[in-house]
């Protein structure tokens, strides 16, 4: 019963708020917080309990020989989902509490909390899902709730556009995801995770058995099997690319910062965007059968990490810097999955969720104190005005940048770099450069926000946030530091990763990257009033948005115009109206034969009759 309680409590809260209490903001907020608290407590209980599975028949068709479709509505609780449950409900609970302060007095507060609860339900669904279809269902639902939350201030055109973009980008990813699911089902006849390894073994066993009798056939079969699996894995990876905002579908995530900041912290940093990684880890047993797909995954991840870090260097909006750093860290995780180090990916996901949530919530606190100003060059000198925020932000920033041996971020990043060092030197080098860039842009951000003189009226009058907002910061600061230490990882059964790194001294290099990054940042940005570097290519994010806009114009919009035009003028115009015009025209022409003389008619009639007779008797 417990997993169902975890899953359904937020849904009930969302339903109650929508149907009953939407008139009362405070009541709605507390219902939502209560629901997520229930989920959290139940998650802790689950964490301490045994693994379990439970399901009911949702769809079931067993009809033909060879084809059956069974989609249970099922939950699975194992070490992977237990950890993820704690992350989601824990961060979720803190963000809910934080929102009590941040969203206080907002016109749409009830709607906000309803959507937040809906999101919690969907996210927990992804975590608990025991089969592909269930995962896809919640996958889409988090997309929808994210759409609603980004568009919370729907009267702002930028928010409305951003939410639309986020949903559509995710839909494109889901196109591939569903296709991958269909392929998997087509090959193995099941969508349940637990049944898939058996299915793969059966297929491979069949090929092996054939190898004895017909080696040539078996070789082609094995090649086909690999290419089908590769295609399926790439399809599923598409889903992860959309949800985890990997290149080339990454552009929605920075725009999603139009949403309220707690939403950015919960959805667009800690949980939902990590769902792509979680899903890849969940199906990582498939990956070894599709080696080329793994290479693709590793490279997509690391390129995203690197490019996003570059873009973060030149952003001026505090939330956008954090958004690009999220992209970059997600790139690390995806790359780790591609390097067959899903344990390391999960580890980094786990630590990242806490320190990134912390950073976003701290940023929210800054924005709140700065009267909704987000430009870092309008801030400055906040360290005296927002002391708690300052220290907690420092903790988060150090964790993100990877302060050696003292913060969780260092350990988890290290695990990924170990994996890369053992597998592919180019990826390892890119990872190191990214680590350097991370330390660099976080230093830049930190200096610009907290040090120097206040650079605007708003910065001069900034104030510390209320208790409900800073308390979650303090709570989150603790795991940001300690959750990388070995005793914690063993407690959470996380695979910290002891991969063969060969002769490369990974921790040394990582520490070096950190020091270089921080040092460079200090050297360039200490006591600056403006950004001394202007690289428009980076500031404009490599022109991705412009390129995409152009691409959409020349492909989709043009195709739509052509289809619309042809539909109106070719099918409806030429064919349909043509048919009617032909009828009218024929009538117009034929009426000239209606001379009105009865005798002519009789003549034609007689001629026709005689002609018929003649033909009949011929």
């Amino acid at each position, binding site marked *: 019963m417990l997993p169902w309680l975890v899953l359904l409590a937020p849904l009930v809260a969302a339903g109650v708020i929508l149907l009953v209490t939407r008139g009362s903001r405070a009541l709605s907020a507390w219902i939502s917080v209560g629901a997520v608290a229930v989920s959290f407590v139940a998650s802790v209980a689950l964490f301490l309990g045994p693994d379990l599975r439970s399901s009911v028949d949702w769809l079931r068709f067993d009809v033909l020989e060879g084809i059956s479709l069974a989609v249970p509505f099922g939950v699975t609780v194992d070490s992977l989902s237990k950890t993820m449950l704690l992350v989601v409900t824990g961060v979720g609970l803190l963000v809910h509490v934080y929102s009590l302060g941040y969203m206080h007095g907002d016109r749409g507060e009830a709607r906000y909390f309803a959507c937040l609860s809906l999101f919690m339900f969907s996210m927990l669904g992804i975590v608990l899902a025991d089969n592909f279809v269930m995962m896809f269902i919640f996958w889409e639902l988090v997309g929808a709730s994210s759409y609603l939350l980004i568009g919370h201030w729907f009267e702002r055109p930028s928010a409305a556009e951003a939410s639309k973009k986020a949903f559509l980008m995710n839909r494109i990813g889901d196109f591939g995801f569903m296709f991958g699911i269909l392929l998997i089902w087509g090959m193995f006849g099941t969508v349940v995770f637990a049944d898939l390894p058996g299915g793969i073994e059966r297929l491979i066993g069949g090929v092996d058995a054939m190898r004895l009798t017909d080696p040539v056939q078996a070789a082609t079969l094995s090649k086909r099997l690999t290419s089908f699996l590769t295609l399926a894995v790439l399809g599923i990876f598409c889903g992860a690319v959309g949800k985890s905002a990997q290149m080339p579908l990454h552009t929605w995530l920075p725009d999603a910062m139009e949403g309220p900041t707690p939403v950015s912290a919960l959805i667009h940093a800690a949980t939902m965007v990590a769902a792509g990684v979680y899903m890849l880890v969940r199906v990582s047993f498939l990956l070894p059968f599709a080696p080329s797909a793994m290479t693709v995954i590793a490279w997509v991840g690391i390129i995203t990490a690197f490019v996003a870090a570059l873009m973060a260097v030149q952003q001026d909006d505090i939330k956008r810097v954090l958004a690009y750093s999220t992209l970059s860290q997600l790139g690390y995780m995806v790359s780790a999955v591609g390097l067959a180090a899903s344990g390391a990916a999960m580890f980094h996901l786990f630590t990242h969720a806490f320190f990134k949530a912390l950073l976003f919530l701290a940023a929210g606190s800054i924005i709140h104190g700065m009267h909704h100003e987000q430009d870092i060059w309008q801030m400055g000198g906040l360290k005296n005005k927002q002391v708690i925020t300052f220290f907690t932000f420092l903790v988060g920033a150090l964790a993100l940048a990877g302060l050696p041996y003292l913060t969780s971020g260092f350990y988890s990043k290290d695990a990924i770099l170990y994996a890369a060092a053992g597998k592919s030197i180019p990826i390892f080098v890119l990872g190191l450069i990214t680590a350097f860039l991370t330390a660099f842009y976080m230093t830049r951000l930190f200096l610009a926000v907290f040090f120097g003189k206040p650079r605007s009226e708003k910065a001069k009058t900034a104030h510390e946030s209320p208790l409900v907002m800073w308390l979650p910061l303090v709570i989150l600061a603790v795991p940001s530091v300690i959750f990388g230490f070995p005793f914690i990882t063993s407690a959470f059964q996380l695979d910290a990763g002891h991969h063969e790194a060969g002769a490369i001294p990974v921790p040394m290099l990582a520490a070096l990257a950190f020091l270089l990054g921080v040092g460079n940042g200090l050297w360039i940005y200490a006591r600056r009033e403006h950004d001394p570097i202007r690289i428009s290519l980076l500031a404009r994010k490599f022109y991705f948005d412009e390129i995409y806009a152009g691409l959409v114009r020349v492909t989709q919009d043009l195709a739509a115009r052509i289809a619309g035009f042809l539909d109106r003028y070719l099918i409806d115009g030429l064919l349909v109206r043509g048919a009617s015009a032909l009828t009218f025209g024929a009538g117009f022409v034929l*009426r*000239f034969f*209606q*001379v*009105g*003389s*009865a*005798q002519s008619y*009789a*003549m034609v009639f*007689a001629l026709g009759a005689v002609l018929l007779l003649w033909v009949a008797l011929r």
Partner: protein
Amino acid sequence: MSAITLNDYLLVSGILFAVGLFGVLVRRNIIVIYMCLEIMLNAANLALVAFSRFHVAPDGMPDYHGQALVFFIITVAAAEVAVGLAIIVALYRTRQTTQIDEINKLQY
């Protein structure tokens, strides 16, 4: 002269029919056209009666079904003439003509 056969009657009937048809097609006076129509009807009657006579029933007598049909045709023709002539009178009253080529209100 050899005995008269069914073909002779049918030929005569056909010629009569052709003459009537020709009249319908070339004459312009609607009353004469009406007369020609009657000729065509009667040509058909002749063929029917000839069939009736040459196709004997099992008891050796003519097949009187054909003659019954002729009876109906004559009756209908009589009614038709009456109505048709009444129409012609009505037509003449409005158009002052019985020339068919001047009665072409039906033209587009």
